């Protein structure tokens, strides 16, 4: 039997999927915005790297990879992936607030999230260092003949760390079931790709030459992203090989923290405007106006707003953990 894994963007998309994707983008947007707003009460005392603008990269998780057999790992900018994967909002907010009800018991903070129950394996704060860990997760699935695959999210900066290449190489040799997702927002902190990588480099083309199947998705269109993820999923599950996915996207706020930092002028106004004009939510609203009508959107907003209010309030009322430095906390 020949398996054909087509990558046709003309594939028919159901209204349900459009709605689901839209809903998830909206949800992540609203949650991150609320974090941004409440941050200035200075009660969330840990660094936060918000994903506003980049939500559509995470949204397909909620449709395609909800099952626990799909295991997600991420880096410092992980809220969206955690939420997309079905992570619990209350536990996320608790964690950022340092409460005992946090997904990492307040020990990890925004950059160290975990929720094994939904297959969100972990996120780490050192650029690129969860990439090989994800490959290990994929390897363990092969060894244990588990179904599913591993997904790991990282930025364009991570492409500059040697461990990225080492991991891609190894994943090819071992045919690991893993999707590598590079969320290319063109910046590492305040530094443009130009000072960090060769001009005109196409990351996915370079990566392809290492020997791994590589796919690019236009990040302006959340449905295209969804389709590329679907393709990637089919590719890995049917071919038993790893795949690399580059998605270009844009962060609206500052690298770390709750504000926008357009005043610092490290990003051209034209560039910012371009991305905001093509915001994923507006894009979908326009393109699928039949599906995404006012009423539906308002319903979504209400539902999300309720979820947010409940979670934030509960998190605020939750207790701080007590410190323990006993050996049994440090050694298993």
């Amino acid at each position, binding site marked *: 039997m020949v398996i054909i894994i087509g990558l046709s963007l003309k594939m028919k998309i159901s209204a349900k999927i459009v709605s689901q994707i839209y809903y998830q983008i909206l949800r992540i947007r609203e949650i991150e915005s609320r974090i941004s707003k409440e941050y200035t009460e200075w009660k969330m005392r*840990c660094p936060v790297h918000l994903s506003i603008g980049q939500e559509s990269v995470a949204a397909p998780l909620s449709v395609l990879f909800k099952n626990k057999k799909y295991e997600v790992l991420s880096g410092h900018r992980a809220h969206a992936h955690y939420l997309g994967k079905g992570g619990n909002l209350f536990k996320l907010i608790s964690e950022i607030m340092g409460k005992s009800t946090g997904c990492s018991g307040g020990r990890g903070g925004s950059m160290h999230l975990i929720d094994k129950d939904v297959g969100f394996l972990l996120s780490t704060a050192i650029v690129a260092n969860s990439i090989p860990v994800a490959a290990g997760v994929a390897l363990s699935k092969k060894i244990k003949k588990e179904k599913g695959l591993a997904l790991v999210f990282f930025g364009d900066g991570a492409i500059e760390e040697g461990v990225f290449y080492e991991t891609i190489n190894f994943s090819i040799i071992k045919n690991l079931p893993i999707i590598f997702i590079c969320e290319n927002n063109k910046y590492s902190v305040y*530094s443009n790709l130009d*000072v960090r990588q060769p001009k005109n480099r196409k990351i996915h083309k370079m990566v392809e030459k290492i020997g791994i199947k590589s796919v690019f998705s236009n990040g302006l269109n959340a449905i295209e992203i969804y389709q590329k993820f679907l393709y990637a999923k089919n590719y890995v599950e049917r071919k038993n090989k790893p795949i690399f996915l580059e998605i270009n996207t844009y962060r609206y706020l500052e690298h770390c923290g709750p504000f926008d930092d357009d005043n610092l002028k490290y990003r051209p106004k034209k560039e910012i405007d371009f991305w905001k004009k093509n915001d994923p939510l507006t894009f979908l609203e326009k393109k699928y106006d039949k599906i995404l009508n006012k009423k539906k959107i308002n319903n979504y907003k209400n539902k999300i707003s309720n979820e947010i209010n409940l979670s934030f309030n509960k998190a605020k009322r939750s207790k701080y953990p007590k410190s323990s430095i006993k050996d049994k906390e440090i050694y298993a």
Partner: protein
Amino acid sequence: MPKFKYITYAEAINEALDLSLKKDPNLLCYGLGVSDPKEVFNTTKNLQKKYSSERVFDIPCSENALTGVGIGCAIKKCRVVMTHQRLDFSLLSLDQIINNASKFYYMFNKKIRVPITIRMIVGRGWGQGPTHSQSLQSIFSHIPGLKVVMPSNANDAKKLLISSIFDDNPVIYIEHRWLHEQKGRVEKGFTKKKISNANILKRGKDLTIVASSHMTTEAIIAGKILQKNNIAAEIIDLRSIKPLDFKKIEKSISKTKRLIILDSGFSFGSIANEIISSVHIRSYKLLKHQPIKISMPDCPVPTGFSLTKNFYPDYKRIIFECEKMFSKKISYEKNKNQLHDVPNKEYLGPF
């Protein structure tokens, strides 16, 4: 004209870099963020503008290669100052630091030198957490061929940085994020301070307190409280961890016969042990009371607000130990309820 000015630790570092870049036209200064709008907490302010992007530049996220690049420049007599915004990121480059930089001079029979300075900033507070707040001076000072300095104040920060840069050996220069905004009286001009000279911050006859970097801040507070309670502590600021000025410590304890060491590193394998062990080996009957080691617990640093409370050793720990040591109650006003996870009131996260 006054010989001093009153500037912050960060400004002092900036001045040291500025003067060094001016002095040596082949000196390079690079690291993540050195030319970005925040300019590494202002420590690299204006340097790129002044000295061109050839000499002062931002880098890719490639800590390991860029350390090797620095070593390559250094052996060719282009001195290098490389910066890590957190010490933790330098762990990616330990092969270069340990297998190359530290060994070249000896293993190539003194035929090449490696004048590279690696700035590492130790984070603290505001949820820096386990991977943004490690103070690993122990690891670096264990390696023959490396020097390790940890300035505690603006004047030392400036002079020791200039000395590090113009030292012909690889120097690990460890800054503390909570010192950057501290002001101090700083000597003007291109001035150095010999690496290996500890500094007596306060004289006293009853007790020797050894500290370094941000820990000296706590030692000074404790010193004042103790003084009011008729205990005269001598406070020694190590300045450099390697070489270690053991002589000055020995001299002090032969007078005070009592020793407390503050160490910002994890307890097991800390430099505090090196010092206590040396005291024991060289004059094992000298002390009237067992030496006290005050260090970070052997536990990853948690992120949450409540968890870091009482996690870091502070002046109260010193007082507590002194109460036992001198068998007396020591009275002091508890600090007004300042938040424990920021260096000062003006500080708002997240960085």
